[in-house]
């Protein structure tokens, strides 16, 4: 079900933990649907120099958390915002279709952490706020393991 890369990032997750006095912290997800991701960013001169995470969730959730911390480090804030869940999934050699939504979590955690950084630094434009975490349980977990085009 999972690629070797997913299993590697699951069994040996990179950057687990917290950053004290992080410049941005984002927490997304909902324990109710079985996934919460918390992302910590250290940002210097608009560049992400360190990232750490904590995740409550499935193998895909842990692996995408791990991969996204690797992807953001060294990027500017604007570059990091362009990282999509698809990019995270691709970097892991793909995810099973029922698990694609777990990669949304990573994308949103990055956004939430950056938003927190922007807010703390007075960089937030007026209407960015709602966009950060529009993810809701019901949106993500709509399917029951069936395929998209099946009628039942």
């Amino acid at each position, binding site marked *: 079900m999972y690629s070797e890369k997913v299993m590697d990032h699951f069994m040996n997750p990179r950057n*687990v933990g917290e950053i004290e006095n992080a410049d941005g912290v984002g927490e997304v997800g909902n*324990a109710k649907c*079985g996934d919460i991701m918390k992302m910590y960013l250290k940002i210097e001169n608009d560049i992400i120099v360190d990232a750490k995470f*904590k*995740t409550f*969730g499935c193998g895909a959730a842990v692996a995408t958390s791990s991969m996204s911390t690797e992807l953001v480090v060294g990027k500017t804030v604007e570059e990091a915002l362009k990282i999509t869940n698809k990019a995270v999934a691709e970097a892991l050699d793909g995810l099973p279709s029922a698990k694609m939504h777990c990669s949304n979590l990573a994308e949103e955690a990055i956004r939430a952490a950056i938003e927190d950084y922007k807010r703390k630094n007075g960089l937030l434009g007026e209407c960015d706020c709602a966009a950060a975490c529009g993810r809701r349980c019901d949106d993500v*977990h709509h*399917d029951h*393991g069936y395929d998209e085009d099946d009628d039942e």
Partner: protein
Amino acid sequence: MGEKLIYMDHAATTYVKPQVVEAMLPFFTEKFGNASSIYTIGRESKKAIEESREKVSDAIGAQAREIFFTGSGTEADNWAIKGVAYANKSKGNHIITTNIEHHAVLHTCQYLENDGFEVTYLPVDENGLVTPQQVADAIKPNTILITIMFANNEIGTIQPIAEIGAIAKEKGIYFHTDAVQAIGNIAINVKDMNIDLMSMSAHKFYGPKGVGALYVRKGVKLVSFIHGGAQERGRRASTENIPAIVGFGKAIELATANLDEYNKKIMALRDRTIDEITKKIPFVKLNGHREKRLPGNVNLSFQFIEGESLLLMLDMKGIAASSGSACTSGSLDPSHVLLAIGLPHEIAHGSLRLTFGDENTDEDVNKLLEVLPVIVERLREMSPLYENVKRGNKNV
């Protein structure tokens, strides 16, 4: 992984015992005749089926002609429930069940609700039990069927089946029980327990997959579910799956002959596992009734962690287990059973089911007790929910 696999998921399915495979094998190659045929190898197939039917009826205290082979436990459930419902709809349209049934029962009931039937889903207590009184109270003049599972597949809780059977009998209402988890694992006598219909499946007691059986008490009004040829006395069409039916018979014969000893053995593994894990690991809860539970079933919730991650890490250590977390299936809600016994979503997500069987040993449990605490701790260290606890805030 190189290591020996430690399989602790016997409620999901079992391997097929060598004696069972051996009994099946001739029917693939030499004795392959269609049981409807009148020539020698056809008659041999017919005979093999009837011998198997007798083994099944002997094991549950029924008559051979009350046993019908099906293609799965799920098919038996579908047939029993739809079959009784449609055959008796002139008498009423109300069905009583519980909210912790297997999906084979629940989804069938939901299908019937869409077709004009009315279904009462009895709630269970925190141990997963319904009471005979609850059943009695739910009966209405239009009730035609009570369907309550013998033992639950997730938390192992065993229902008061004989008492419910007695109530059903007194009121003249058909009583079906899904005994897929129970049969071959605990002693059942359909007559003593007043069971009218009972679903079984071979792959839960070292028989093959893809073969089930439905016990239908003589006299029960039931319409057919799979229409076609005249197999199974005209009640369940399809060329008989002779190797699998033979395997069913052999497996139930072996299971019944050896039941007490088998139970004693796996109960010891179960009890030791429950005792030691709850002692060794904090923030853990046993799900299901402590005594009224299947001999091989352990179901525990570990707070702050998620089941799929737990399973994957156990798998890396060579241990196969299962979970009630929705993340294993990618669906919305965790197990309806764990929610029904009152677990909050996030705790239900952290559940682990270990079901012991034939080949498990004390060493297997040792290995589990060695690796599980480390894995739980490791996942908790990764969990944002656990931080709060370590900071002294226990109301996460």
